[in-house]
């Protein structure tokens, strides 16, 4: 009986279960508007945890990884959003929260959404492809900076280029960098620079830098223009985008050939450092000289080696061999010739002696005499000197005059009988 009067006692779990059922049944689908605060991304799971609030009240909210990956923007504190979702109760803590399925930013967040959607669209079209990026010339001769002629951006840019690489010509193309008309102004500038190059009114431009200092997202909105993005993409001259601070990303950054975190960094990215160049030149001179020196030394050594080598000296040996052979042969010839000559000489001497024995003169000495008579030419009957040797007695007639030659002298005689 007593128990019937007692209040119905519930355990905590039971109560939370009732509440869970009550809330989740009645708020299984809600649209909720509020400002994001305390936004956190769980590093491991990627789930979003945040608070949604208005002026007077707040509610915890969660967006699971499976849902938030479809978002085209990253939520931030202070952004007004409309959430589509349901209420869930987390019994363990006895707390309730909104589980968001979709999130649509309002106001400033709207810009974010448009940014993300445009980024996605241009990305899919291939405007951000690495393969479409033009290389930035390493040693530019002429660069154009498209920016406002007033303001620190230009001064910083000039200061750094002057220090790093004073070789270049910097052209300033003044444009409006924010507000209405800025987009058209910059697009015009890009097209005009290409045209001026084409008509040789300015020299060939190596790089265009589009620069603007930091500012609010609205200030930088110019650089999220689709038209500007397409103009940058179409430009044949490499473009470096240098808009805002390091944390600011614009569509212009994605579509450009190179993104510089700030205008000052842009000045550094597009120029080589003159000091490094001079150092490289020094190194070059040194290496060039030493390479050539080494080469010469090596060649000189090689020549010496070759000169000394056995094979190289063999021809010399062969030549000397020939010399020796030649000497021997010529000596042989000399000896042979000399021998032959002396033989002949001896023979001649021998002949001479033999001849002497049989010579007329020698015979005359022994008592022989030569008898000559005069030649008679029959038809003319003329007589000449005693010039015909008489070899037979019958050749002489009676009374014919003859000449007898003795060893010592000649005598005239007449044939008696």
């Amino acid at each position, binding site marked *: 009986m007593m128990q019937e009067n007692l209040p119905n006692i519930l355990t905590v779990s039971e109560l939370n279960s009732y509440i869970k059922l009550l809330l989740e049944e009645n708020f299984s689908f809600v649209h909720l508007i509020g400002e994001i605060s305390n936004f956190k991304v769980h590093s491991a799971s990627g789930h979003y945890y945040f608070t949604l609030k208005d002026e007077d009240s707040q509610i915890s909210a969660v967006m699971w990884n499976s849902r938030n990956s479809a978002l085209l923007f990253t939520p931030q504190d202070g952004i007004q959003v409309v959430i589509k979702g349901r209420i869930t109760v987390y019994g363990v803590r006895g707390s309730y929260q909104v589980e968001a399925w979709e999130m649509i930013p309002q106001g400033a967040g709207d810009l974010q959404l448009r940014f993300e959607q445009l980024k996605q669209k241009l990305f899919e079209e291939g405007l951000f492809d690495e393969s479409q990026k033009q290389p930035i*010339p*390493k*040693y*530019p*001769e002429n660069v*154009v900076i498209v920016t406002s*002629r007033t303001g620190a951006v230009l001064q910083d840019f*000039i200061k750094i*280029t*002057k220090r790093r*690489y*004073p*070789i*270049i*010509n*910097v*052209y*300033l*193309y*003044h444009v409006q960098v924010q507000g209405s008309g800025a987009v058209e102004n910059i697009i015009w500038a890009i097209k*005009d*620079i290409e045209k*001026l190059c084409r008509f040789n*009114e*300015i020299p060939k431009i190596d790089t265009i830098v589009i620069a603007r200092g930091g500012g609010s997202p609205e200030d930088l909105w110019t650089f999220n223009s689709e038209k500007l993005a397409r103009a940058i993409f179409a430009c044949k001259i490499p473009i470096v985008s240098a808009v805002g601070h390091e944390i600011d990303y614009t569509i212009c950054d994605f579509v450009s050939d190179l993104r510089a975190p700030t205008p000052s960094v842009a000045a550094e990215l597009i120029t080589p450092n*003159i000091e490094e*160049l*001079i150092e*490289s*030149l020094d190194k*070059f*001179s040194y*290496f*060039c*000289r030493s*390479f*050539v020196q080494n*080469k010469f030394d090596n*060649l000189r050594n090689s020549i010496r080696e070759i000169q000394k080598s056995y094979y190289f000296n063999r021809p010399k040996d062969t030549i000397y061999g020939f010399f020796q052979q030649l000497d021997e042969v010529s000596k042989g010839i000399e000896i042979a010739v000399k021998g032959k000559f002396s033989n002949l000489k001896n023979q001649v001497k021998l002949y001479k002696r033999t001849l002497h024995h049989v010579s007329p003169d020698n015979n005359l000495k022994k008592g022989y005499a030569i008898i000559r008579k005069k030649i008679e030419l029959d038809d003319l009957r003329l007589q000449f000197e005693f010039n015909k040797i008489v070899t037979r007695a019958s050749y002489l007639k009676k009374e014919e005059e003859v000449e007898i030659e003795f060893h010592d002298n000649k005598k005239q005689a007449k044939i008696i009988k």
Partner: protein
Amino acid sequence: MARKNIQTKTFEESFSRLEKILETLEGDDCTLEETIKLYEEGLTLTKVCYDRLNNAELRIKEINKSIKGDTEIKDYK
């Protein structure tokens, strides 16, 4: 002829030519005649580059458009 080419080269051309020369000199396929030729060219180019770097002074010009759309290029400041 070669000298004239060297003078009309842009800094980039001169510098990359220098790098190329160094690379060739480092290689083994370079004949003695080529080595001497490259060495001479390298020295001339180095001098040209030094001169350009040492005598450089940043030139800044402003491209101005008139209302009519005419272009005027004048020294900045």
